[in-house]
């Protein structure tokens, strides 16, 4: 299988708003690295889970893949073509789609569901026979009734709005769907319905997914591979089953251990991880995780670990993995 999406050494940085001196003196302008040297590939038909705490750069990565955030360094190759120009990103967006975090906010409150579903065709200048028929077809594909087409977003429940989000993402038969927290705010039973729908459509339409989430219990069941991010860097990538069975990076380990277990007999006495994710403005020296790591040594405080390959399909950024 060839890679559908290939990201190599991707970095994104934003200028920091500084004081008067910083603006007047050229070269004084400071930048913060939101993403640093991300290399990741997604095979056709694969589901990749991207996990990490808030502020780890997951959403920025998704935005830069779609050309919504300017890239500072590195390359993104989609379907064999490198993405550079605005036009190449526009073409790329024609065959990929994003499911946004807040489904109600991502739908225009002034448009009916039917109009929202056929809007992608108009944006990309794709001819459709009959707008109404097309909308109904998309609705039935995601398990909603035809009369939903006349409703407005505020009349939908959380689960229905998610389904509309899925239908809209599917409209142009994309190859890749990037789903940003596809199930936050949903009840567990509805969450299962949406994930089952996504899995079903994946086999039916030959989709690839990149699922961005901090819900580990969910990503464990839907993704084939998992990439863990910390402060804008990848710290572990590997097949989901293996990462959950034996996480190599201490951060991945404590992230998995932090997930509350739905069993009162398995209550944990102590905390797997303390403190908060540091600010990207003030990155720790050496290994960036050493401030919260339980096995940190002197070496971790001075020397930054590099990504290393372990076995054939796992990589990890830790001195002691």
């Amino acid at each position, binding site marked *: 299988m060839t890679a559908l999406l290939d990201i190599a050494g991707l970095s994104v940085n934003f200028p920091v708003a500084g004081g008067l001196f910083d603006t007047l003196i050229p070269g004084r302008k400071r930048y913060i690295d939101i993403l640093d040297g991300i290399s990741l590939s997604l095979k056709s038909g694969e589901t990749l889970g991207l996990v990490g*705490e*808030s502020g780890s750069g997951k959403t920025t990565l998704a935005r830069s893949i779609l050309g919504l955030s300017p890239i500072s360094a590195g390359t993104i190759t989609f379907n064999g073509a490198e993405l550079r120009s605005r036009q190449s990103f526009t073409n790329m967006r024609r065959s990929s789609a994003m499911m946004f975090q807040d489904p109600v906010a991502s739908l225009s409150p002034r448009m009916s569901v039917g109009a929202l579903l056929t809007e992608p065709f108009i944006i990309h200048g794709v001819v459709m026979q009959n707008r109404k028929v097309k909308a109904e077809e998309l609705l039935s594909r995601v398990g909603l009734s035809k009369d939903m087409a006349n409703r407005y977003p505020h009349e939908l429940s*959380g689960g229905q709005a998610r389904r509309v989000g899925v239908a809209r993402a599917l409209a142009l038969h994309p190859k890749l769907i990037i789903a940003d927290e596809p199930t936050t705010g949903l*009840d*567990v*039973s*509805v*969450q*299962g*319905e949406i*994930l*089952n729908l996504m*899995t079903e459509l994946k086999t039916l339409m030959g989709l690839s997914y990149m699922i961005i989430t*901090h*819900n*580990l*219990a*969910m990503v*464990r*069941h*839907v993704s084939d591979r998992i990439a863990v991010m910390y402060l804008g860097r990848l710290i572990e990538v590997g097949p*989901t*089953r293996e990462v959950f069975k034996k996480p190599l990076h201490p951060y991945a380990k*404590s*992230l998995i251990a*932090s*997930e*509350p*277990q*739905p*069993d*009162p*007999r*398995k*209550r*944990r006495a102590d*905390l*797997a*991880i*303390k403190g*908060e994710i540091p600010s990207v403005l003030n990155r720790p020296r050496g290994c960036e995780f050493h401030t919260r790591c339980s096995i940190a040594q002197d070496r971790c405080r001075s020397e930054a670990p590099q990504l290393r390959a372990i076995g054939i399909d796992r990589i990890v950024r830790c001195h002691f993995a």
Partner: protein
Amino acid sequence: MSAALLRVENLSIGYDAGIGQIQALRAANLEAHGGEVIGIVGESGCGKSTLVAALINLLAPNAHVNSGAIYYKGTDILTMDRESQRHLRGPDIAMVFQDPMTTFNPVITLGDQLVDFQHHIDGVSNAEKRKRAGELLARAGIPDPELCLRRYPHELSGGMRQRASIAAALLMTPNVLVADEPTTALDVTMEAQIIHLLRELRTDYQGAIIVVTHHLGVVAELCDRVYVMYAGQVVEQGLVDDIYHAPKHPYTRALIACDPAHFEEHTPILPTIAGRVPNLLYPPKGCSFADRCDMATSRCREITPPWVRISETQYALCHEARP
């Protein structure tokens, strides 16, 4: 067991909706004792928020108490006048809200707000009040409380804000602490820390803690007793271990089965609960869960299920439940 600190009896609340009344809460019963952590679980629309709003007397203007009472230390708080109700909030019943950003005023520093919260305490100087606020922030696990007191809410991360709002609630030394989805807006790592904090607090805190959530993992980690709600009713109550290991109501069983955290192995098709929550404008005549239940018989659709006693601590609202 000692007399309950808080007792909700047969409480029914409806919302006027023009075309009728939405029966958001139907004959709910609940008891909370000092030193206990109670969990209320259920999905959206099950009435948990209405119950909580009633507990702290913050019901919406279109809400109607159709029947029932909430006894706090033996007095029905629903029949009190507004002024006495207001005096209860804070020193007696305090609340931690879901969204820590909207808990605080964005244009006043945390220190000034935490001092203001103590306005009802007489004969204590502002400096002492500030010192006490600092102590509680430290108790809630904020590393540099002095610095935190000088900060504005937007300068803190979500986890820190939630810690600060727990500290603000504890400032009143309430007898009942109600936490509505206290970890929903947070990352897993922060969630684990807030659970840890709440668990630590119960050891040196004499009051009752009521945690409302849809996250079964949070309840399992934190609570002593659980109330499971569905379509405005409490459908099962019991000790946390019984609820998770010997659930008697089909809804409790289905809800637990749905949680993806339950499966260690890769499960591509996750279990769901087929069907929808009934429309509470016209609540069903029989059992509200009958339409989605695989054990349902014609009796379930016609006759209101009884509140079956399973053991001294466990009860279920189901025709089929047996001890």
